[in-house]
């Protein structure tokens, strides 16, 4: 068996800045993972659909516009509805400290705030894979 860790990086919402998302995507690739990048301005529905079709182990969402309290739980909800409750969610972007517990409650295993080194994300994924 030649299994690779597969991660989908999605950008829900309206902001068009994907430098951070692409930076993480490249770092994960360089760590040997298969990263599916879906582009900017994706609906939660589109991200969830893609995650199921791509059979990923992880979905990482990146958002700078401040709509995370609405859009992140939406992705989690639709993913569950489509049978993807075993997919591990994480998020990143401009997210205030006080919003993090709420996001963890709806299923986000980790939230990375600006300035996070890419290696932290890689470490997180490798830890989760080992824990499976």
């Amino acid at each position, binding site marked *: *068996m*030649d299994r690779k860790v597969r991660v989908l990086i999605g950008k829900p919402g309206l902001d068009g800045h994907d430098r951070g998302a692409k930076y993480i995507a*490249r770092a994960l690739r360089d760590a*040997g993972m*298969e990263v599916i990048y879906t582009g900017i301005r994706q609906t939660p529905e589109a991200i969830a659909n893609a995650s199921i079709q791509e*059979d990923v182990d992880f979905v990482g969402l990146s958002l700078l516009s401040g709509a995370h309290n609405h859009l992140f739980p939406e992705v989690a909800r639709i993913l569950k509805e489509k049978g*993807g409750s075993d997919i591990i969610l994480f998020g990143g972007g401009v997210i205030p400290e006080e919003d993090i517990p709420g996001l963890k409650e709806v299923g986000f295993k980790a939230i990375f705030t600006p300035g996070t080194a890419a290696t932290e994300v890689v470490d997180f994924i490798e830890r989760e894979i080992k824990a499976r």
Partner: protein
Amino acid sequence: MLSSETDRFAHMVRICDVRGLARVLSMVENGHILAPSIMHSLYNPERSSLTVGITGPPGAGKSTLTNRLITFWRRHDNKVGVIAVDPSSPFSGGALLGDRVRMQDHASDPGVFIRSMGSRGHLGGLSGATRDALEVLAAASYDPVLVETVGVGQAEVEIASLADITLLVLVPGLGDEVQAMKAGIMEIGDIIVLNKADRPGIEQLAMSVNASLELLPDQSERPPVVKCSAQTGEGIEDLTETITSYISSLTERKQIARRRTSLILDSIIREKGRYLARKMVTDRYGSVEKAIESILEGETTPYGIGEMLSEFIDNKRECENEH
């Protein structure tokens, strides 16, 4: 036990359970132990789904074009499947798969299934996994199933030729690459697409492509050449008409079934042949590297090893014949 698991997965594919289908694609890609039996259960040489290969150099607009073609077939109410293959990094083994970015128009459409694959760089594995992924989507009655591959290496060209129809996408400004691909142009494309027709240099490209097609020994097999712009949409209708008429010229179902079957069997023979020969060398010498050492130390030659393999295979056959 195994067979009921196989049936369960094959059933999920046939009823197009998206989660199950996606799982089976991973099993095929990862060389899961059940994958061969699932494929065995799903294979139908006379399936009605057509497969369309889209190949060409990186950046030629293959994904953008695929997005347009999906739109075309969705208008005809077909469920469309897509396999998009991008190269894996030879250093890390990872891959950044970004073809979906260009296919966003269909991101929420339940009638479109898109799967990204990294080439993973294993011997023969790329074409094997992609070949089987096409059959899986066809068995889930996606019709057509499109497969996008970067058409630079042998393996990718091989995949493209596994499809029932192959589009070769070329763009202006490649210069030397078109020269290098001349042989390929004549052999792999059923339809040659000159994309980025909105760019300067398109006429020059058309001339150079037509000139190389002149060299085809059999001019009746000369593929149609279509200019278009996947970006602006100009010429896309010409292209879809050309594809449609090509499809209707493929009337002989039995003939398509024979071609498909022979390509798949041939590819499995090559895959297994390589596996078997490698395994025999490994059994005898410990590893391929150790076999090389033996050759360098003067104990044998590559031909000597070849001879040993032939003898082994022939003996095996004789043993079997005695029973």
